[in-house]
């Protein structure tokens, strides 16, 4: 359980933002294990579109930081081949949305080979995800639901600098193929945490309670976790409603126990996603809660998500799409007040 972990973290030294946390994780894992390598587009000199891989080539050499042409399909295939030869590739997608270009191999290669051939595919895919920068739908979508139904994959989606660091390290060390989504607003708004000096990891598959409460459980992941916590603070002050916020952090495998424990206490739950409600991982959360916590529920599990259109450019329609503390707050008021 991460709560322990976080108290441990309190004896800390420095503050790192999300971006630097990712950078530190990559550096440390490359230092720890000389089979860890990065492959992708424009990662050498530029460090990828957000600069997270910048400097790695200088530190670890040209062999371990490979630039490719714009060939998402073949470079992901290549990463599978590298994995089979004992490398541990960290595949850099410029936008998580481009997983659409290699999802064939994510499924038919990475997720199937270990089962079919008794091999390890210890690769990690990192992709900046989510909206808020006005890049529109082909670079700002949520796509975790696209790959969630395929056994063999691990899906990670941190919402804080500490989680990004600890989970990325675990993903790189994992012998299973891991997809790590990094929400772009977390880079952009330079979300920070106190960091201990010593290395640490956060286990895959463990949710974290990011705020404790007794009246309603929010289950969320990524950027909306922060909006949820914000909404919870306001509700506490203005309405005396205490919302517990469970951050899934890993979507597959999903930490059912932590979710159910929280719902047992609050007896009400809401899933908050940046994704469209219909067909999202929010559905899995709601289905899970009602299935295993039916008797704890005083009301149906609510779902809050994006409207049913692709995320557009212009401020009013993009804002109406994104998940905000205000939307969460209003919805909870409707539910509880």
């Amino acid at each position: 359980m991460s709560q322990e972990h976080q108290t441990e973290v309190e004896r800390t030294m420095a503050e790192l933002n999300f971006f630097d946390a990712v950078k530190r994780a990559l550096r440390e894992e490359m230092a720890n294990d000389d089979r860890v390598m990065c492959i992708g587009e424009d990662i050498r000199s530029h460090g990828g579109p957000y600069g997270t891989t910048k400097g790695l080539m200088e530190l670890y050499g040209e062999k371990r930081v490979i630039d490719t042409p714009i060939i998402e399909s073949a470079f992901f295939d290549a990463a599978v081949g590298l994995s089979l030869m004992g490398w541990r590739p960290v595949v850099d997608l410029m936008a998580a949305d481009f997983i659409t270009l290699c999802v064939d191999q994510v499924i038919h290669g990475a997720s199937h080979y270990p089962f079919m051939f008794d091999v390890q595919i210890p690769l990690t895919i990192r992709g900046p995800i989510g909206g808020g920068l006005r890049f529109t739908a082909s670079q700002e979508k949520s796509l975790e639901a696209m790959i969630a139904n395929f056994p063999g994959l691990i899906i990670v989606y941190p919402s804080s600098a500490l989680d990004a660091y600890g989970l990325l390290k675990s993903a790189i060390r994992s012998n299973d193929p891991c997809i790590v989504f990094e929400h772009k607003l977390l880079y952009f708004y330079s979300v920070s945490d106190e960091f201990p000096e010593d290395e640490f990891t956060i286990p895959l598959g463990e949710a974290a309670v990011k705020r404790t409460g007794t009246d309603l459980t929010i289950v969320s992941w990524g950027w909306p976790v922060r909006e949820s916590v914000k909404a919870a603070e306001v509700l506490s002050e203005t309405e005396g409603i205490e919302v517990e916020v469970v951050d899934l952090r890993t979507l597959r495998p999903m930490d059912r126990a932590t979710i159910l424990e929280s719902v047992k206490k609050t007896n009400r739950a809401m899933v908050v996603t940046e994704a469209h409600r219909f067909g999202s991982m929010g559905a899995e959360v709601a289905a899970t809660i009602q299935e295993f916590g039916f008797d704890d529920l005083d009301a149906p599990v609510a779902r809050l998500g994006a409207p049913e259109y692709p995320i557009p450019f212009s401020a009013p329609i993009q804002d109406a799409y994104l998940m905000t503390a205000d939307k969460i707050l209003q919805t909870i008021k409707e539910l509880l007040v």
Partner: protein
Amino acid sequence: MAISKETKTRPASDGAEFLRPSEQLTDDQLVDLYRDIHLIRRFSERQVEEFESGRMPGGLHPGHGHEAISAAVPRAVRPSDYLNGTHRSQNGILALRGVSFRRLWAEVFGRETGINGGRRGVDLMGTFEDDIRVWAHNPVLGHNAGIATGAALALQLDERDEVIVCLIGDGASVCGTVWEACFFAGIRKLPIVYAVENNMVAYTTRFEDMSPIENISDRASAFGFPGQLVDGNDALAVLDAVHTAAERARRGEGPTLLELKTYRFVGHFIGDPQVYRTREEVSEARKSDPLHLFEALLRDRGLLDDAAVTNIHHENLERIDAGLAEAMLDPFPNPADALSRTYRSGTYPMGYSS
């Protein structure tokens, strides 16, 4: 970076006579072409100004250096032919195909009246309107070529005499779907021109570091159609090459792969530190600025003087700024309307808008 004179006139197909429509342009037409090149440059510069002022949201990938291409391509073909630009050339081509600056700026600033109702923004705008025929480009690199190839297939099936010119970045030109599309177009001899805007860089990646062969145009032999290397900074060379390839396609002889060699004068995006190249390289390349080259040519021929140039620059800026002023008064889109745009087949029983 400059292309030697020999290469640029290499014929598109052996035996075919090499037409030079550029030689038939009237003086007025030449001046108009200059006006277009400048208009595109100025539009792009104004966007950069707006962006740097912080007023303009989203991302911006200016096309400074690509203007000979954006200006010559629309003139190389018939108004009824289809065009498909890249993120560098698209905005200029839209303006030259008659989309008002008001509609363009309105899109840039996310207004309801924008060419895409503010849904796409500056980098991605485009349209499938039949009276414009400048197809929107797909921001996932490579797929423009695939979609344009489908359009070419439609033109062939319908026995129409239009063609489509599909512009592709050098980086994008290696995406799997581009190879597949070219191969398919080669099999069916589709009426399409693939024209690579080779600005020698893709994001931060230098062309020479990511190509096993010197000329993209040489890839054409894998598809069974001709390739041609063209000086993409020379508007007349682009005009001639695109025209010849388009006419070849129109005659049913199939596609051509043009490589239009040019240079991106600015960063990939505003703020790009450009660590992948030296200032000297950029200054050297700027000597072949398509705007200056063409201005010099027309001055040489006595078609332009200081007064004429000043006048054109002034008029262009006025057009651009008038559109901007109008656009800024336009309303923003309404989220309530957005929902009704997702599906086209009317209302489904329920549930999908939840």
